[in-house]
């Protein structure tokens, strides 16, 4: 074991700085050709197709998602015979121009939601709500736990 070996000592440094690695014969010429070929291939690739390809990919993805959703709503349709209650309480089926929206697959649920939400809104009607109606509504829509909580509050 030698303890006085110093890598900064000029003789040692000169020896250690010598390149201990080799390369295959003609490597530097061949690597230049390889790099040049790769760059030429990249340059040729930058045509219309290279630019359009990712964009077409994105468009096809959106089309696929849309068709997928459309198919799902067709396979599992929501109830097409729906009715609303008019002021007198009797059931009215949606007919006429609205029916075409109803038959438009997924648009149906969106339309129905919109229709019901406007009917349910208290702000859109001047009708007085009777106590019986209120109790009916609460019994259908409010769960037992909430009702018992209201009891305690009273």
């Amino acid at each position, binding site marked *: 074991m030698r303890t006085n070996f110093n890598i900064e000592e000029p003789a040692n440094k000169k020896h250690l700085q010598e390149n201990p690695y080799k390369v*295959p014969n003609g490597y*530097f010429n061949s690597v230049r050709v390889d790099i040049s070929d790769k760059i030429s291939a990249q340059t040729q690739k930058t045509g219309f197709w290279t630019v359009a390809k990712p964009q077409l990919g994105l468009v096809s993805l959106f089309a696929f998602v849309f068709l997928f959703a459309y198919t799902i709503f067709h396979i599992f349709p929501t109830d097409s015979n729906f009715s609303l209650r008019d002021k007198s309480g009797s059931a009215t089926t949606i007919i006429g121009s609205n029916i075409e929206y109803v038959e438009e697959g997924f648009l149906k649920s969106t339309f129905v939601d919109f229709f019901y939400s406007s009917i349910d809104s208290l702000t859109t009607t001047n009708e007085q709500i009777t106590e019986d109606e209120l109790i009916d509504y609460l019994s259908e829509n409010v769960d037992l736990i909430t009702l018992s909580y209201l009891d305690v509050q009273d």
Partner: protein
Amino acid sequence: MDDKDLLALFREKGKENYAFNLIVEKHSERLYWHIRKLVTSHEDTNDILQNTFIKAWGALPKFREESRLFTWLYRIATNESLTFLKRSKLRSFLSLSDYSKQVENQLEADPWFDGDNTQRVFRKAIMTLPPKQRAVFNMRYYDELKYEEISEILNTSVGALKASYHHAFKKIQEILKESI
């Protein structure tokens, strides 16, 4: 032709490929040795060198000559090498193998290593350093670059580089004292 002329040629329409081939011809050998000293294996060096020039080709139109062309290429090559070393270390960690042992074996089995025992022990000692410290040590010890140049390449302060080189030097010196 110097780097400024090569860059001017590169900016002439229709002469990009020709100018870039001249840049590759001028700088590839020196960059190769820089990468090789960092990653050791010839095959890995070859891949990194090619990636370096392909990245340089993509980025050269935006090169604003705030640094010298060679410094800029050196920076790309160093970053590519450090990324490669980081990935190798992670890969060996995930496969539960001993990375330092792997590196040591790589040097022993390298058919393109032609050094004597002192040089082998020295190279092995360098391979024990963390990748960035190894890069600092190589650039200072082998390439004899100034700290200011290394600072430009690694985007690290001169003070931190001096400290890093000092630690690397001490560590290698210790290993060599025990092994030679």
